[in-house]
């Protein structure tokens, strides 16, 4: 079974802190994604990566950055956390960009910024 894990299920941070969210997948997937989920808005794509050291902006990249130094790991960084970044963050991975493959999700990290 594909396994996508996220470093924390719940996280509480203060405004202005630098926050790291880690995601690891164990199935050698090339593509990895970070979404945030807010009530009534569905999932919105923040960033995605189709290879090591490669990244592409999604719909809402402002205030976020990402790092992909190893194929299995994709990190989301909040350089200076703000209260409007309080949300559920979901990581996902998929085998190949152009193939008809399913996208698998991690359990999510619920981040609260005070």
């Amino acid at each position: 079974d594909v396994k996508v894990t996220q470093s924390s299920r719940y996280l509480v941070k203060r405004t202005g802190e630098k926050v790291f969210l880690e995601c690891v997948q164990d199935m050698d997937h090339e593509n990895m994604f970070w979404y945030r989920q807010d009530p009534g808005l569905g999932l919105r794509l923040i960033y995605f990566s189709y290879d090591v050291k490669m990244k592409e902006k999604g719909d809402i990249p402002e205030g976020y950055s990402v790092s992909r130094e190893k194929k299995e790991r994709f990190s989301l960084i909040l350089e200076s956390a703000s209260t409007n970044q309080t949300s559920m963050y979901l990581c996902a991975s998929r085998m190949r960009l152009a193939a008809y493959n399913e996208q698998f999700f991690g359990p999510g990290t619920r981040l609260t910024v005070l």
Partner: protein
Amino acid sequence: ELKVEQNPLFLSMQEGKNYTIYCNYSTTSDRLYWYRQDPGKSLESLFVLLSNGAVKQEGRLMASLDTKARLSTLHITAAVHDLSATYFCAVVSLRNDMRFGAGTRLTVKP
């Protein structure tokens, strides 16, 4: 820009009844996914629809895709309480990233 719209956003139904959730999308795509999310949990894949006219069924859920109308439906037959969850449709964009609808929160009452 690809937009995905679901309706209804909230659905309360009695056990044993039938209902349909609709998913419209704005630009051409040949891949549509349905996911289920239970409260506090992540997304679980239900169906992958890859071509016009595709129909897939699993238990009391049946999904179909009409690429010409840019419409997918998720039909619920004889609903049971265990089906209570939030259902999302998602469409793959030209950039090959996945765009989601806002979700339909389904509550099945006894």
